[in-house]
């Protein structure tokens, strides 16, 4: 089989594997830091989103609402393009940071909705009980609501992280050397002159990353649900 011969050829050629590893490094760097940034932004936006309706919170709430609407409503490729060629249009600016910020901001919008849903999923009776026992609003939130909310949020966050990792493949559009770009170059006329083989190999790497991540998420979820009677 031509296909499998070519896969073996790719995996045994040191030059090609070096390119794949170089790409993998970029993909992982962008994914990990963007995920962290996304979680931070998402948490802030979610907390602002569910806060009470005092006059001080009106403006922040409006900003967060616009942020979530615009970011979720426009294509990621366009956001990356604007980030690379308008906002960070600075000579010699590290492209990794451009990508991390673009993906972090994008991911934050989705994460914020997941976290908001998680907090709202905790019965209002829990908050009322906490307040009735004399705890302050903040203590009720931190000690009673959030620990229960986290359990509900983990699967949704895991989903978002997986989507984020695979979505980073579009950074090749701004010329970054990620896993997909490496596969494209290996597939170009100067190297193997066929796309299917390197793309399939890259896909296996993505699958492996996602599988490891899923494993981690399952483990955390299991630990958190250890006390549940189900």
């Amino acid at each position: 089989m031509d296909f499998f011969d070519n896969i073996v050829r790719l995996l045994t050629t040191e030059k090609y594997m070096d390119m794949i590893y170089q790409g993998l490094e970029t993909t992982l760097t962008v994914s990990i830091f963007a995920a962290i940034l996304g979680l931070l932004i998402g948490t802030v936006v979610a907390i602002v989103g569910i806060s009470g309706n005092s006059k001080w919170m009106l403006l922040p709430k409006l900003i967060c609402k616009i942020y979530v609407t615009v970011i979720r409503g426009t294509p990621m490729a366009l956001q990356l393009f604007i980030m690379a060629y308008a906002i960070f249009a600075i000579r010699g600016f590290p492209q990794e940071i451009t990508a991390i910020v673009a993906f972090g901001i994008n991911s934050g919008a989705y994460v914020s909705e997941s976290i908001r849903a998680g907090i709202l999923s905790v019965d209002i009776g829990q908050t009322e009980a906490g307040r009735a026992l004399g705890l302050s609003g903040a203590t009720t939130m931190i000690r009673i609501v959030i620990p229960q909310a986290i359990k509900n949020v983990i699967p949704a966050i895991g989903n978002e992280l997986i989507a984020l990792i695979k979505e980073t493949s579009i950074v090749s559009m701004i010329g970054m050397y990620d896993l997909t770009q490496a596969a494209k170059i290996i597939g170009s006329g100067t190297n193997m002159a066929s796309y299917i083989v390197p793309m399939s190999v890259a896909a296996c790497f993505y699958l492996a990353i996602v599988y490891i991540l899923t494993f981690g998420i399952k483990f955390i979820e299991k630990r958190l649900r250890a006390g549940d009677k189900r």
Partner: protein
Amino acid sequence: MKKIISLILALAMMLALAACTPADNGDNGGGEGGSIYVQTNAFFAPFEYYDGTEIVGVDVEIMEKVGQKLGKDIVWQDGDFGIIIDTVKVGQLADCGAAGLTVTDERAAKVDFSTPYYTSIQYVVLPAGSDIAKKTASGVEYIVWEALAGKTIATQTDTTGWIYTDGEINATADNDYGYDGVLYGTGTTHQPMDNADVAADALGTTVDALIIDELPAKYLTSNSTKGLTCYPLYYSGAEGEADSPVEEEYAICVTKGNTELLTAINEVLAELLVEDANGQTQIEKMVMQHMGMSN
């Protein structure tokens, strides 16, 4: 308490976003020791392509010589082919663009072009066993536009092949194009693709032909294991006239007004375009070398 914390966090986020405003470090390629930023699309062998993680090729060699002349480093920036002209026009991110760019009036209105350094003919790449008719004149086998009627033609988006194909299929004297396209109304489908390698993979299955510049076409066919062939693309001559090839010239583009860089590029090109005893220019030698055809 919660409200205050939320407010602080929200403000922190706003500030973080506000910090992302553009800044210009004012390095426009002027002054000794700076860097020249070159925008390219490194999927166009032999002019620029990746060798491992490095961008190499004929354009790279030309620009390195320009860098030496001006005493500056060359910084290569890879990206979509379609953004090169706009990026160079604005001049914020790049001083010049070197990517086998064809000189067209629309592009010349936005950027300054150097002297052309290579003449390329459009080629049609065909899959093995294709039934598209070829013609022969004075020993050269070629394909005329008419032979492609009713077929699905792939091109790389924004390249010259794309511009020509789009024109021939969509142009009529009544619309903006102002001339009659050869393939107008023949049911020919135009299939623009991300790059020529994707198109080469699709040849024979979803597309019937790929229109691309001469050298990349030859590169694709010589490296292909699928038996691809390529032929020059010709316009049918009028009654009694010979058919003529679809030609174009490559040049390097520079931000308008950057005469220092443009002059340096033109000087380097003039040196490289001097023919040696065998009638071969330095650029032709580089091309052969990067295509693995040097002896």
